């Protein structure tokens, strides 16, 4: 995963083929449920029995992560929250967290955004205001606190002592760069040049910029080079960032794609209810994930 694929956007057959590109143990950056999650690929990861995945929520996670956690694919989660939104707590995450079955790296939304933007710019860190005084700071030895160097002409000291010491002068927290192994998400359109259209979901572009590889499923193929179209271009992620692409019609279902299909609230509620128990979750997997013909909604 070290080489950045500059000129090799590959066109794969389907979600299974994309899932096969993601090795066990990879750190995968995932968007929130409202931001084009690649659910078809997530289901394919469950089917291929992916192991020890490390999930990064950008900045929060939902059903996408809950499925992978419940199916035993996940070793570690870094996120600022996991929730099913209107459908309540994410039941498999909640149980795994309460039983201590996951390595949890608690964060807060803008620290994740800033870490990805640091990687996007090729710098080792980015500063952020706030956060000091949250118990998150003590848990995250990779978050550093320094005196604001723009205000201090003399020495500035890395926090060995507590940032709340009175001799700390305008302390500020630094988010370390986050460069995930894989960015995984869904797009409304792709084109033959390997570009994908994400619309206003710009956090997906940031993930792809920061990641070592980006795997993208898409609703449908669009004619022409979208980067040459001034109306579409602002919503495009250029192919330079896209390692591989595959078609997955209704690939975000049961979550939604703006202007294509809405969130399937009833399904999400049914999932939230079923997944409250391990047995219910197993039945859900059998019915909706492991049975090939039900890979995506018939609607």
């Amino acid at each position, binding site marked *: 995963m070290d080489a950045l694929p500059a000129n090799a956007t590959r066109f794969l057959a389907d979600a299974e083929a994309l899932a096969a590109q993601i090795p066990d143990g990879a750190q995968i950056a995932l968007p929130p449920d409202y931001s084009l999650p690649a659910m078809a690929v997530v289901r394919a990861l469950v089917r291929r029995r992916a192991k020890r995945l490390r999930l990064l929520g950008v900045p929060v996670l939902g059903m996408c992560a809950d499925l992978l956690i419940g199916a035993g694919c996940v070793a570690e989660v870094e996120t600022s929250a996991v929730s099913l939104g209107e459908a309540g707590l994410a039941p498999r995450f909640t149980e795994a967290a309460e039983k201590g079955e996951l390595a949890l790296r608690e964060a807060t939304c803008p620290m994740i955004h800033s870490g990805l933007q640091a990687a996007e710019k090729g710098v080792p860190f980015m500063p952020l205001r706030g*956060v000091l005084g949250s118990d998150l700071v003590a848990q995250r030895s990779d978050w550093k606190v320094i005196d604001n160097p723009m205000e201090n002409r003399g020495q500035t000291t890395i926090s060995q002592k507590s940032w709340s010491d009175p001799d700390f002068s305008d302390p500020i927290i630094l988010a370390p760069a986050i460069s995930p192994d894989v960015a995984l998400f869904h797009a409304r359109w792709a084109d033959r040049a390997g570009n994908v259209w994400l619309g206003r979901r*710009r*956090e997906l572009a940031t993930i792809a910029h920061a990641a070592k590889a980006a795997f993208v499923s898409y609703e449908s193929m669009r004619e022409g080079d979208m980067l040459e179209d001034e109306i579409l271009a602002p919503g495009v992620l250029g192919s330079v960032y896209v390692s591989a692409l595959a078609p997955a019609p209704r690939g975000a279902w049961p979550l939604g794609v703006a202007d294509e299909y809405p969130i399937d609230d009833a399904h999400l509620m049914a999932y939230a209810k079923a997944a409250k128990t391990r047995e219910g979750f197993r039945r859900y997997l059998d019915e909706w994930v492991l049975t090939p013909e039900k890979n995506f909604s018939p609607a």
Partner: protein
Amino acid sequence: MGPYAREELLAGVIARLIGDAAHVAVGAASPIPATACALLAARGDKLRVSLLHKRKGNPFSEGSRELFDLAGQGRIDVFFLGGAQIDGEANVNLVRAEGRRFPGSFGSAFMYFAARRTILFREEHSRRVLVPKVEFVSAPGSSPPGVWRRGGPQALLTGKALFAWQPGRRRFRLESVHPGSSLEEVRDCTGFEFDCGPTVAATAPPSAAELELLRGPVARAIAPNYPAFAAKVWLSRSPPSAASA
């Protein structure tokens, strides 16, 4: 309760707390704060409301980081936070309590510092929620001098009472008790100590004019994003034409 829904009372209180703010950001599962904003808008106030995660459209074009950047720029006047636990120093816990896991801190550890004012809002008023000391500080209620902090808590509103935050004393002061509750009940159900004047006012209910707005234009504005909420609060009373849309 009176001739109004509890949600209407709470929205009215929040509208008064928002006051003359220029820009309010309202999170996903917050129909009552959204109702308060819609009430101010219906009254003709020039309030800008950024509803996060609207079902159709949204106020942002830079992805999910834009809310935090806006707050960092000082462009968010009022934000709302809840909490699995809230303590008497206005610390907020969104992570874990009594062995139970909650979703996580979201952006609280930043927004509580960067928004000019934060209204703490949790309908459940119990010793389980309002604790002497939170188990985990997702976001602290105050910061030492020398630590950058643009804003902090303004008030804590629950289903039983309204507390004002006193930054100098780092303690809440009971401001008013909602109709139907009593000072005694509030004391019983609050796990932290708070200040209290010699007499405690009753929370002002929504006025007739406010109720008319709430049940007309406000209900119609809220229904598309919070259909279940709008149906529950208003459909049984005086159904606005679009509440079922």
